[in-house]
């Protein structure tokens, strides 16, 4: 029995008719065609699907779309301003913070949330924060470097 959900995604009001079992990540990718949010495992381990719900990072495969009815959702697509990358995205590019790039959207969204809570995280704090984001290329060293640089850029 399809039900109607409405939410704000990347500043735009969206509505969809979906099955109750639809995960938020499916709604974002399949209904809204925002495919920047990746599905790595869909069992809440890898963190490739991290988005922000009302300003907090959440794995979008851990949430049903109907649960966030009325919420303000931001995906990786909301970060760049036209062709100008967000400072965290720029830092990933500058510091070779990605190899195959599959985990990158989740890494960047987690990193932005971290910096919001902790504007100047230490390497240890970054590594602890990233416990829920897996990189199968094992590119963690440069990811941590990127986040350190991104945090500095965001502090301005």
């Amino acid at each position: 029995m399809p039900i109607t959900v409405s939410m704000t995604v990347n500043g735009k009001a969206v509505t969809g008719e979906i099955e109750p079992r639809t995960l938020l990540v499916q709604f974002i990718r399949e209904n809204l065609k925002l495919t920047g949010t990746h599905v790595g495992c869909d069992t809440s381990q890898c963190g490739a699907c991290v988005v922000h719900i009302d300003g907090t990072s959440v794995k979008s495969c851990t949430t049903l779309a109907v649960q966030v009815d009325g919420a303000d959702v931001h995906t990786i697509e909301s970060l760049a301003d036209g062709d100008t990358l967000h400072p965290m995205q720029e830092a990933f590019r500058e510091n070779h913070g990605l190899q195959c790039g599959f985990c990158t959207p989740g890494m960047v969204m987690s990193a932005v949330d971290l910096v919001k809570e902790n504007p100047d995280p230490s390497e240890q704090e970054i590594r602890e924060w990233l416990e829920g984001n897996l990189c199968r290329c094992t590119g963690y060293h440069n990811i941590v470097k990127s986040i350190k640089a991104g945090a500095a850029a965001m502090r301005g």
Partner: protein
Amino acid sequence: MNTSQYEAPGSVDEAVALLANAKGNARVLAGGTDLLVQIRMGMADPALIVDIKKISEMTTVTAENGGFRIGAAVSGAELNENAAVKSMWPGIVEAMDLIGSTQIQGRCTLAGNLCNASPAADSVPAMIAADMTCTIAGPNGRREASVGSIATSPGKTSLADGEIVVSLFVPAQNATGGDAYLRFIPRTEMDIAVVGVGVNLTLDGNGVCTAARVSLGAVAPTALLVDDAAKALIGTKVDDAAMDNLAAAASAACNPINDKRGTIEFRTKVAGVIARRTAAIALERARSN
């Protein structure tokens, strides 16, 4: 997946009525960090999902009789930011904080960890050590049960059809009491306990242990309350000899399985080692209280 109905009631009574009237399999959704994964993996296929996160009674932590009542939908992150709970029961909060990653912490719940009934659930030994109870609502009204009585075997609980855990109650800690939880995992984060130990102990003015509860996780089909391990501490100053007896009692109580995370022999030995380390932390906390 056949889930065809999602409901987010605003009261416990409505939630109970939904569960009682459900046609087919119904599941309660607290954080969803276990349930949604089980659905995706084909291990669960509920026709009805009842989301409890919109029930105010279940989303709050309140002071009660010197202790705390913790709503079934309170997330790990909220508990971790509750300074009052954390200072009285650091072991419980630390155990909860070990579950999953930052994003999982934002959603997962103590009650969900309990009702998922995994033998390796991190929060359960800590809750049993603290002698926690829970309030359960069902078609026949409300009842109280000890946390240790909920899981009956891996994935199975003593909750009857239509029953739902509303809240958990942790009593006041003794003025000179301390609790702790430790687990062994092969990694540093994001893993399932190979052995988990919760210890809660109280000292008298002379530093003699007057009460203790020791609970083991991941070494039997359900978390265990090990009386012999508690007896090893009670009446002693928790010295090396008492710690040796504690470790021996903890190992003796184990009834683990062999799996990729650890053999029977390994788990049995490590249970003693971890029991000792956990008791040392609880002791330190009791002394400083």
